[in-house]
């Protein structure tokens, strides 16, 4: 699984950080998400998918395989 965030689209809603705190972080001054683990291990794939669904800006892309 590959996780990316489009920072142009990101609005700093913080939903990704709430859903998947081991995968995402936020830069408070820029108000944008940061991907800590672009290739997360399988045990947190559910969290990554929940984060993508929860993002109001639809800024998160997940590629499987």
């Amino acid at each position: 699984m590959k996780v990316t965030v489009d920072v142009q689209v990101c609005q700093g809603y913080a939903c990704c950080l709430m859903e998947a705190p081991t995968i995402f972080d936020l830069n408070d001054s820029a108000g944008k998400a940061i991907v800590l683990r672009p290739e997360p291990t399988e045990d947190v794939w559910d969290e990554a998918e929940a984060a993508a669904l929860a993002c109001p800006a639809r800024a998160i892309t997940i590629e499987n395989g």
Partner: protein
Amino acid sequence: MRRIVIVGASLAAVNAVERLRARGYPGEIVLVGAEPELPYDRTPLSKQALHDGPDTAALLLHPPAWYTEHGVELRLGRAAVGLDLRTRQVHLAGGQTIAYEGLVIATGSRARVIAGARTAGALRYLRTIDDSTSIHRRLIPGRHLVVIGAGFIGLEVAATARQLGLDVTVVEHAPAPLTRVLGERAGNWFASYHRARGVNVRCGVKLARVDPVPAGSSTVRLSDGTALAADLIVAGVGASPATEWLRTSPLSLMDGVLCDSSLRASAPGVVAAGDACRWHNPRYGELMRVEQWSNAAEQGRHAADTLLTGVDNPYAPIPYFWSDQFEAKIRFVGRAKLGDNIHIQEDNGSMVALFGRNGLLNGALCVNAPRKLATYRQAILDETPWGDVI
């Protein structure tokens, strides 16, 4: 199930479709909507889209082809007007009926209207793309805007108009903005924030009447005798669930479609999601109705799960919402309602207000401090004592 009908072309509806297909539901899906547009995102209508002028294509939740790919039969521009639970049929305006085996009620809410002839015809409301377009066209620099109601919609419209160079007054009958959601102390922060950016915020006064004057403008008269010139008046005084179409059915309503913890309404095969749903949230042990983006999306998926599986499936979210006003990115998690403690800290353009209840952290408002929001959400989940977070 061979046919699921979703009433309301909404965010909750789209999420229900996504989840039904993701779970491999092979049957028909019929989506009924009163507005002619495909489901679109309403949240920008009082912010960026109001500033720039709404672009329908950019606001759509999915392009037209998505509905074909997902096998969704669209019945747009035709409101549902009735529900027959016995024969399992939805009645549409114009006399058509659609039979269902499963029904998702996702009709959302509509802007509450200020009753009374003394303001009739003078007030505009903001709910749809058409509303936003119509208000946008009147946001002309130097003109006078009066906003009735200092809730989130009212404050967002005020900020947008002020940024476009209008003279803006906000009228609120409570002692501070946002008191119903955040209480008076946090509300006062918003009053100061808007005043510092040139918005005239007048709390503790009511709209008395609107007098038309020549050339299309009006005079807004307030309960304290003040008269305000207005080229445009926008009212944002809350929303009501769009459930009028269910009044003649025996479905249980209580300011929304009354649902159990799993989002099941009071009839077999019927679930509800979004602004129109009042359900029992087991986390708080009370009936709640939530008018927020995240809830509508998540509830749409959850209602689809309940409909397909038929098993108990409690929906127990911690509420989350956001607002953008001027340069403030406002994020809230939890609940401020019924709080018995509040702690506010300000720091260099950011502000955090914490809300305590019964010795625990219950809610957190973070302005330009999104990272803290996640920390406080975890603290709410962990039932962190109030003394440990302030």
